[in-house]
């Protein structure tokens, strides 16, 4: 297939005195269609690309964050068919038949209650983990509208916060739960 370098970085604009080779023997790029936040979006990427990087680099949905790439921090949490999932370990080919919701598309009643509670409790610090925290909290309250303290801690365990905002996260989940009940 054609070298995409030509599109991305015309040879004459590259390094002076460089012996970079324009031809790489690359894998085929493929066209994929994704259902994201209720819209059909098409992307051209290499097979095996994690959904995280498709969202961030190809589709400009940068509310979903990269923290570890190994499904260990939760910063990249999105909903796939309604369930919180780690987009860094979800490969593009496995996402094509699913409904994907990112923080940008989290607008239902539960999402609104969670975000309002997050603001009332001033949960955020740096904020990098918070899209993921919010997506997980929406998942929790959708499945279990009145979680106990222990259930909150267990459900949210996989969402790491380096700024350590957990006390407020848990308070906000409980507040959102009360809001939903009202």
């Amino acid at each position, binding site marked *: 297939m054609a070298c995409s370098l030509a599109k991305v970085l015309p040879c004459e604009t590259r390094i002076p005195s*460089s012996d970079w080779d324009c031809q790489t023997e690359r894998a085929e790029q493929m066209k994929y269609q994704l259902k994201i936040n209720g819209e059909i979006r098409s992307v051209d990427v*290499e097979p095996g690309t994690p959904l995280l990087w498709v969202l961030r680099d190809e589709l*400009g949905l*940068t509310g*979903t964050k990269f923290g570890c790439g190994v499904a260990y921090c939760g910063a990249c949490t999105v909903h796939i068919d309604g369930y919180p999932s780690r987009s860094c370990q979800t490969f593009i080919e496995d996402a094509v038949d699913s409904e994907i919701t990112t923080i940008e598309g989290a607008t239902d009643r539960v999402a609104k209650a969670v975000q309002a509670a997050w603001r009332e409790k001033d949960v955020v610090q740096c904020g*990098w983990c918070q899209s993921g925290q919010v997506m997980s909290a929406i998942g929790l309250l959708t499945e279990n509208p009145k979680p106990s303290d222990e259930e*909150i801690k267990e459900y949210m365990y996989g969402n790491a916060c380096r700024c350590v905002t957990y006390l407020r996260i848990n308070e906000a989940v409980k507040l959102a739960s009360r809001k939903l009940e009202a």
Partner: protein
Amino acid sequence: MTVQISRRGFLIGSAAGSTALLVGLGSNGVLAAAGEAKLAAALNPFVRIDASGVVTVILKHFEMGQGTSTGLTTLVAEELDADWEKVDTEFAPSDGSRYANLMFGLQGTGGSTATANSYMQYREAGAVARDLLVRAAAQTWGVDPDSITIERSILTSGPHFGHFGEFVELASTLEVSSDPVVKTPDQFRLIGNQRLHRKDNSNKTDGTAVFAMDIKLPGMIYAAIARSPKFGGSVISFDDRDAKQVGGFIAAQVLPNKAGVVAFAKNTWSAFQARDALSVEWDFANAESRSTFEIVSAQKALLDHPQFDVNHDISLSSVASTIASAPRKIEAEFTFPFLAHAPLEPLNCTIAPTKSGVIMYDGCQFPGLSHPTVAAILDLDPSQVEIKTLYAGGSFGRRANPMSDYNAEAAMAFAVSGRKLPVKLVWSREDDLRGGHYRSQTAHRATIALGAEGNITAWDHRIVTKSIMKGTAFEPVLVREGIDSTSVEGIAEGLYDIPNHAVGLSDFETAVPVLWWRSVGHTHTGFVMETLLDMVASETRQDPIEMRLAMLDPKGTNQARMISAINLVRMMSGWEEGDKRGFACHYSFNTCVAVVADVSVNGKDVHVNKLYMAVDCGVAVNPDIIRAQMEGGAGFALAAIYRGEITLTDGEVDQFNFPDYELLRNGEMPEIEVGIVSSNAAPSGVGEPGVPPTGPAVANAIFAQTGTRILNLPMTKAGFNFV
């Protein structure tokens, strides 16, 4: 440190048809005001008020979560009596002449100084704007300025009322009065307000806040760097045959300083894949090739022969005989591991060409250092480099470093790419944890002589650590006669009265780069000092709180503040004689924090139930942010003391990603109660001071319950599990 505030009284022109009022520092360093048309070249402001009445506060400090975007905004809004909902924030450009940190003389954030150094400057800017608006309204309405009051951005006098925007045009033509008056504390409505919400809590909960890593520019290419697996190694050669199999790979190139090979690709994922596929031959001649156990023994050996006597008047040799003849002694040796900052947004930096030079997009903590570094690497005049600061996904010290390491890497990558296209350098989590700039591995040894009454008669204290400041721009200020003050802070300049307190220091040499890590030297000195005092208290059967109070002279300003914090935490926790909880307190960044830790121990299983924390940080500008920083600081300390360590085997880092450098998790966080000592003194730092006393309070509580002293961190070394 004292803060110098420039006086006002100078007006930079004005423009007919101004659409905004701007207040900032003029070219002579005094506060000035102007209409917008004139402003671009003349003035980088602190405050802008537009014709619709919206107040924008321009933040000279970046936001890494510490709350400064709310704090500085509070200061301006307070003086203006602005409607909090109608105040926006914007990060300042790089301009050291207007936006320098008054404690460093350079534009930058660190050392928990953001509120402290801005407190009068941002209030005065708000007061200048208020005075101009009031006089403009008085002139318009033909009333006495003293008759005008402001409520939520609305000026009122008798029957007249109007919002800020209606007066900005006239206000920007008035002369700045010689001495606009800031409020007295009894007039505060926003400073100290418990219910003020963070300015960044909407955009950080709906995904719209723009962080550096979120930048995407037309034609942008992505870069990842293969760095030496041993610190201090350099590239001999590389082979990119396998990288060429990676879809999206563009090319690879050695960095000009030979510290790594950069892989360019058309997205981040491809850049990581291609970088991982490079095979690089390294020269390890100058690299660190030791393992952690060898570094520990090398440090312990240096404890025997300190290089420097830190206290001039009391040398180690002068206390030797008192110690030798003491009836009772306490001796202890402590070791601390390397620690990574691990901000959750991995480091990244984008550099793009502009007409006249480049623009750098970064969660830029220290424009005053990054700006000249990037200009020099690209052989540009600093005026050709523009910096766009964006939200930073945490830092804990990592984004500020004297070498501007990742900014420099991005500049080198941009240079070797041919300078035609925007280049975004991204670090993976593995790059971050294995990339150095750690809290230094450190060893302490103390010998404390006790007299017949159990009183301390002499103290021989020795520290071995790598200097953070030597060889950096901070050396002239922070290194005196060879002694890096950040290696000994918290031991050498504590608040306690300790007779015959001698402190020795040796610099440890290693190619592993070290850096300030949330609370700098206090990360280890606080733990050591507060553990040792607990040892003295238990050896001499004194109450640990009473003993410390007796060592603090209430005539000293900071000692008196610490006494208040201790008394507050004692009251909050209901501390009693013979209490089985742990106590520690520490003074750092001009703030006093005292902590009581309540833990349960079952065999080797430790559960921290609750921390009581009392803080004296001067006037509490945003009490809820102070509480949040105490909570965050405590949690940050717990992750480190429980299990945080970066270790080396033959010079290579053993850890890769979060599975082997575990952060504190939800469910591991104890309950925390924070008390704030009420004060009208100038504000001091809150980002870091919660860290140092937390670890020793927990360690002292574990001792109270088990009789086991924890001297080597992390605590998992002593066989404890945290449940």
